[in-house]
């Protein structure tokens, strides 16, 4: 099996540690908040406030379950518009109180359904991209599993984007890519390879800033080890980001995303 397919299957494993497990291990006194104040509370997005050692932080993440029951509660990790709007509400709250924001991303993509369209899935994602790009407080995003397209990006317009070794991030699933572009869903492995969706590839083209190796025995068998590393990295990175003047922070974030694109002008 190719490296890319190996990561795809690891990222999607039902035992893959989820956002709540990371929150429990990295932060203290996590207090969960609910609802977008507009329509509903989306179980696919978990968010609230907590301490990172002594630093108050806002934490938001996309939640997947380990069992069918858990997955029904969190819609298999595919947020509806109210999930993205809850995330934005909590991020704006963080801005007001100048707390850094840490987001955890693990989704096959934003939910595709009638209700999601009626309530403006496109608008919800678009709004998050715009508001995150100018949020006057530091944001760090961590891809812990799947990173499916706009539904992942909607929580990842950040100052620094991190990813676990077997995380992934792509414009669409390799299955979708193969069936749409080649009309042949059996060419998934080829698609996964071509799409450069693994942490190593993404690090090379600067879509992510940092990669964390996973324990050899598997992330689910030694989650504490990775959680400690992430906590250490956050404690090293956040104080510097917090010290930055807001215009400097925002200009750097602007440039981080402004640079993407390959073209000629002859």
């Amino acid at each position, binding site marked *: 099996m190719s490296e890319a397919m190996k990561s795809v299957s690891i990222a999607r494993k039902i035992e893959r540690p989820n956002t709540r497990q990371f929150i429990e291990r990295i932060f203290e006194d996590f207090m969960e908040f609910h609802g977008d104040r507009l329509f509903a509370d989306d179980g696919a997005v978990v968010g609230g406030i907590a301490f990172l050692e002594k630093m108050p932080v806002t934490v938001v993440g996309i939640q997947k379950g380990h069992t069918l029951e858990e997955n029904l509660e969190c819609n298999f990790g595919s947020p509806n518009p109210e999930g993205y709007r809850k995330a934005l509400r909590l991020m704006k709250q963080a801005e007001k109180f100048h707390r850094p924001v840490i987001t955890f991303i693990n989704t096959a993509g934003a939910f595709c359904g009638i209700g999601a369209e009626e309530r403006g899935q496109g608008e919800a994602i678009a709004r998050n991209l715009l508001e995150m790009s100018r949020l006057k407080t530091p944001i760090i995003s961590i891809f812990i599993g799947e990173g499916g397209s706009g539904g992942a990006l909607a929580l990842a317009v950040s100052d620094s984007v991190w990813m676990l070794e077997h995380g992934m991030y792509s414009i669409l699933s390799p299955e979708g890519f193969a069936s749409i572009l080649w009309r042949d869903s059996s060419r998934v492995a080829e698609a996964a390879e071509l799409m450069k969706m693994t942490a190593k590839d993404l690090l090379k083209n600067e879509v992510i800033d940092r990669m964390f190796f996973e324990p050899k025995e598997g992330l689910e068998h030694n989650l504490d080890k990775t959680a400690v590393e992430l906590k250490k990295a956050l404690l090293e990175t956040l104080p510097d980001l917090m010290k930055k003047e807001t215009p400097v922070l925002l200009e750097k974030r602007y440039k981080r995303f402004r640079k993407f694109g390959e*073209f000629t002008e002859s």
Partner: protein
Amino acid sequence: MNLFGKKNYFSLEGGEQRTKKNDKRRQKAEPSIPDGMWIKCNTCKAIIYKKEVTEYKLCPNCDAHFRMSPAERIAITCDEGTWEELDANMRPKNPMDYPGYEDIIEKAQKKAGILEGAVTGRCKICGQDTVLALMDSHFVMGSMGSVVGEKVTRAVEYATKNRLPVVIFTTSGGARMQEGIISLMQMAKVAEALGKHDDAGLLYVTVLTDPTTGGVTASFAMLGDIILSEPKALIGFAGQRVIQGTIHQELPEGFQRAEFQLEHGFVDRIVHREKLREELGKILLLHNRQESEVTL
């Protein structure tokens, strides 16, 4: 997929694709229809005499709004002689080394007669200065890759620098899949440029045209201060087949059309194409402080 490959009308002419076999058959068939004189509307299925279709490209029978190229759009939107194109020579590279991408682009360039899926520039609309960006649904399904993202971002940055409003006509099948994750990043890039334009207190108007979907909906299409749409335009995030495949239900009549979006609060106004220029002019004037405050 067919949604974006097809025009919403088709010509009854043989055109260049006519094969020799068809040629022979045509010669036998009497009387013959002269090439290119008739088209069929995909909405009402009426056969239309081509000369009856005006520069607005409406079905004379059912008023369906046919899809338009940026050039056709500029002709009915901008004041004559005011259009100045920006970044006209930008062409894509192949960031993912997608096999055959160069051919896909070359074919699209020939078909659409433009170098990439978006055209940007500045112009006057009813005497009002504005930056204008237009997409072409016939260029690789109106998808957004590096060039579309860069051109729209530069147009917005140009507007911010020169304190001008931005008007964007959207039509898109979503992100350019052949450019992979780089095309996803374009969504963030355009959105952040719009954030700066917004911070500067400047006006952004989007005109959603058929079809506007995927990554373009989930970035700049839905971020207008004012969002206009043409009648019956398909506007949504997810494609209808994807939704059906997810929920295994029939989709309601009129789902994701402009009227549906208006009903659900995502579109300010549905405007008939013949009225668009005038409405845009009025909106621009209402936001032009120098001219509108004279009477205060």
